[in-house]
């Protein structure tokens, strides 16, 4: 006897299930198909090509009216099922009651709409069905129309790319640090972003939406929580989906995140089955069609009384944006028992990463060249032991025995106009020309182009250009790389960050061919410094790439406590400040109070969780952090000078204070200490500082590159300044030149030794225009970084972050 099957939802999963049913047993069921959308089943995943104009709706229809008629399916399209009466076995809809013997719920998902203010304005769209797609296409017809897409996942990016192709001005706002973070690692996310930005799409990561602004009931702009307003005619929200479980819940079926089904796709009611994105199977919910097609097969078999069980398989992802080649599958988190094989070809914009565990591939991410994606995916699904092909695995099936990764790829990838030698403004093209014209050694190139002839820090790069151009005819001298993550030296990395305009950590990892996913404790602090020094406005400082002291804004000590040193400008303090320091010492039980070698007071032995409160107390008394813990300006020691001393020639105390107020807060390759003495008796010990000034009757003798730590060295004379302002400008310019050029952890005396004092003088003393340009760049950086870290952290949030996450002392004792 034919039974009645009612199907709720004419989507991709039910479409497949019905196909299996009618093909295997055309007469088993009398099928009634309800669908909210006023049309039959179409290939939902192809909506993106429809949006971009590469396909039409007609081309993506999977079941047309003929098909339903031929197979005797009664279609109730445009009719939403509003209730299920399980006792009487009928479903309710506008057309009345429809009885069933078996019911199949295939209601899919609902797009999640963030309930922020303005979410119900006209022009706020989801991206789920044909109507959404048409609404977007309509909006794009208006010339100059703007769209904002919230969500940088699969759907959001397909929407953004499609709208861009239709001529809209598109901005993507993404909460996380990189795009498609669930499918891609940082490196692939970086490349994807670069591609989209290259197409003119504005991409904002780490950005939080606050409110949708409207006008006359229509969306006008999106407001971010940093205050930025993004004007738009439509706003597409693509932030995720939620299984559509409303009907099932109301009918009191077992529902968790989705409708609970067993391996046979049967719900908690034996006559009701469910399939597709609305189900939850064994704790998992689904968002891609591959597993849904498997479910459809199982549900059809179950309906026909055949034994079958659904077993989820791994899925892989591709982004359907023409010209973007991206592939992701499996688990690509790092692990100790896991091994990464990373291949980067900066020249072609290729990144491939395989994650291996027990000689089997468990994850793969690739960008730029995904031809081998399915081969890897196959090896992964089959759990193939790859020990034998390991060496060449990353090159794919065609390449067994292929080339090894090229350590010079980063230099090979540079365009001809990339500047190699900053001192003499020589770009790669000129060097290549010289080599093609017969230069075969570093000296030849230097003689002909001047490249590497000045400070010499680009020597490594010039040699690499020689090697790349001459091939085997040039033997590359081995320079010491930054660490085992790269073959490049610090100097190479600094130059490349500038000439390739690399402005983020992932950009450095990818474009310079790093062999680890995110560096190590040796390279990360250095790269973080280079990026913030070169791109103060664009790069965002990363505390997690800093050593403990700079992250916690205090010096860690051998027992894990910290020290607190307030700034005493030029060594000057007041009774009120000393009182506040004494009060803080009492209040926080400071075991040791010490006068430092840098003319200020150190409060040693403070507990981490007390730091923010102590800072707030000292802030309240007008004091700021002394940065006694940074690679940055420490102290400017002074003597009493003309104010009191009978030998003083200039206001050494005043100049010291001015310098300290100008320079504090700036980050430098290593720490920087200064001193100003009022006369050559040199009571402030200026002659062993990074910058030391000695006042004389006729002006100021500015010395640089002294040392009094592990090495002992007298300063060298940089110049004599006639005015105080000139002395300040030279000092600031010297520090900026040091910030822009020195390698991380070189004190100024080591750096000057490498580049030569004459080179420094040419830039800071002789060329006044260049001096002022250095000063201007320093001041620009200070607009971002001259902030008292104490004041910035004297809040409840830091108080929490600086305290224990949880206190289980009671629990664990039980």
């Amino acid at each position, binding site marked *: 006897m034919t039974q009645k099957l009612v199907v709720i939802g004419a989507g991709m999963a039910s479409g497949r299930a019905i196909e299996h049913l009618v093909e295997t047993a055309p007469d088993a069921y009398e099928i009634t198909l309800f669908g909210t959308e006023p049309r039959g089943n179409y290939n939902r995943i192809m909506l993106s090509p429809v949006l971009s104009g590469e396909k039409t709706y007609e081309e993506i229809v999977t079941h047309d009216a003929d098909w339903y008629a031929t197979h005797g399916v009664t279609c109730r399209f445009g009719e939403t099922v509003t209730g299920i009466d399980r006792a009487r076995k009928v479903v309710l809809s506008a057309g009345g009651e429809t009885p069933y013997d078996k019911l199949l719920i295939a209601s899919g998902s609902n797009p999640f709409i963030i309930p922020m203010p303005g979410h119900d304005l006209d022009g706020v769209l989801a991206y789920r069905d044909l109507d959404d797609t048409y609404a977007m296409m309509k909006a794009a017809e208006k010339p100059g129309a703007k769209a904002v897409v919230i969500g940088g996942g699969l759907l959001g990016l397909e929407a953004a790319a499609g709208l861009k192709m239709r001529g809209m001005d598109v901005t993507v706002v993404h909460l996380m640090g990189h795009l498609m973070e669930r499918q891609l690692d940082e490196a692939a996310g970086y490349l994807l972003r670069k591609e989209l930005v290259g197409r003119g799409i504005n991409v904002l990561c780490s950005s939080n939406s606050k409110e949708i602004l409207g006008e006359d009931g229509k969306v006008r702009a999106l407001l971010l929580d940093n205050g930025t307003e993004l004007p738009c005619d439509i706003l597409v929200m693509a932030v995720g989906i939620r299984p559509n479980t409303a009907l099932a819940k109301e009918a009191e079926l077992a529902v968790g995140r989705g409708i609970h089904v067993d391996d046979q796709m049967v719900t908690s009611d034996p006559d009701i089955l469910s399939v597709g994105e609305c189900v939850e199977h064994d704790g998992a919910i689904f968002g891609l069609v591959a597993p849904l097609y498997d479910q459809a097969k199982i549900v059809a078999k179950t309906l026909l009384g055949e034994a079958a069980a659904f077993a989820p398989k791994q899925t892989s992802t591709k982004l359907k944006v023409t010209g973007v080649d991206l592939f992701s599958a499996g688990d690509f988190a*790092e692990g100790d028992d896991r091994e990464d094989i990373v291949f980067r070809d900066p020249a072609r914009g290729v990144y491939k990463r395989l994650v291996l565990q027990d000689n089997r591939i468990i994850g793969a991410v690739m960008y730029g060249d995904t031809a081998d994606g399915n081969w890897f995916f196959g090896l992964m699904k089959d759990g193939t032991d790859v020990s034998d092909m390991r060496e060449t695995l990353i090159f794919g099936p065609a390449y067994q025995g292929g080339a090894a990764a090229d350590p010079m790829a980063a230099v090979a990838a540079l365009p001809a106009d990339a500047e190699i030698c900053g001192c003499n403004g020589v770009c790669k093209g000129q060097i290549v020309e010289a080599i093609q014209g017969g230069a075969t050694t570093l000296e030849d190139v230097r003689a002909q182009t001047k490249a590497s002839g000045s400070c010499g820090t680009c020597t490594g790069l010039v040699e690499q250009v020689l090697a790349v151009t001459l091939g085997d005819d040039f033997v590359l001298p081995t320079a010491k790389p930054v660490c085992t993550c790269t073959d490049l030296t610090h100097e190479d990395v600094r130059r490349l960050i500038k000439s390739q305009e690399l402005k983020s950590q992932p950009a450095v990892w990818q474009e310079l061919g790093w062999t680890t996913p*995110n560096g190590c404790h040796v390279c990360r602090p250095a790269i973080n410094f280079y990026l913030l020094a070169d791109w103060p406005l664009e790069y965002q400082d990363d505390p*997690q790439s800093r050593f403990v002291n700079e992250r916690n804004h205090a010096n860690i000590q051998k027992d*894990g406590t910290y020290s607190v040193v307030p700034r005493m400008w030029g060594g000057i303090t007041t009774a009120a400040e000393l009182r506040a320091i004494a009060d803080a010492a009492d209040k926080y039980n400071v075991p040791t109070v010490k006068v430092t070698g840098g003319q200020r007071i150190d409060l040693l032995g403070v507990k981490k969780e007390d730091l923010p409160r102590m800072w707030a107390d000292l802030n309240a008394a007008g004091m700021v952090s002394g940065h006694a813990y940074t690679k940055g300006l420490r102290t400017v020691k002074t003597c009493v000078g003309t104010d009191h001393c009978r030998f003083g020639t200039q206001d050494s105390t005043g100049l010291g204070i001015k310098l300290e107020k100008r320079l504090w807060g700036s980050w430098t390759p290593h720490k920087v200490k200064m001193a100003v003495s009022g006369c050559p008796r040199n009571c402030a010990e200026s002659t062993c500082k990074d910058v030391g000034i000695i006042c004389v009757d006729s002006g100021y003798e500015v010395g640089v590159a002294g040392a009094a730590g592990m090495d002992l060295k007298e300063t060298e004379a940089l110049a004599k300044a006639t005015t105080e302002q000139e002395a300040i400008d030279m000092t600031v310019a010297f520090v900026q030149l040091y910030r822009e050029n020195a390698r991380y952890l070189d004190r100024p005396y080591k750096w000057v030794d490498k580049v030569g004092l004459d080179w420094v003088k040419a830039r800071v003393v002789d060329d006044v225009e260049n001096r002022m340009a250095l000063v201007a760049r320093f001041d620009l950086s200070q607009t971002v970084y001259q902030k008292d870290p104490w004041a910035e952290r004297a809040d409840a949030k830091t108080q929490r972050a600086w305290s224990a996450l949880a*206190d289980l002392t009671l629990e664990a004792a039980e």
Partner: protein
Amino acid sequence: MSWIDIGSIDDVPVRGARVVKTAQGCVAVFRTAADEVFAMSDTCPHKAGPLSEGIVHGHKVTCPLHNWVFSLETGEAQGADDGRVPTYPVRIDAGRILLDGAELAKRTAA
């Protein structure tokens, strides 16, 4: 196992750590770039440096005091250094970090 909710994943910085105080000393809870969590004793076997203050790279942490590197998974010191930090079962459920109280209690028993 007895899972104790110690806080939200958002409370731990990416590539960073926070400590949980226990009667037997601090336990460091780490979060990696890929949003996984690991828990181990906060005390470095070398000279008791607070591991939660180290730089987290990959599945490793570098001690802030003298740069020994430890695996977050096994607690084993890497490279030439010799030592092991006790690790504890920890997991994430719906954005909450759960630490195994039973294992913590064993710490005193052992």
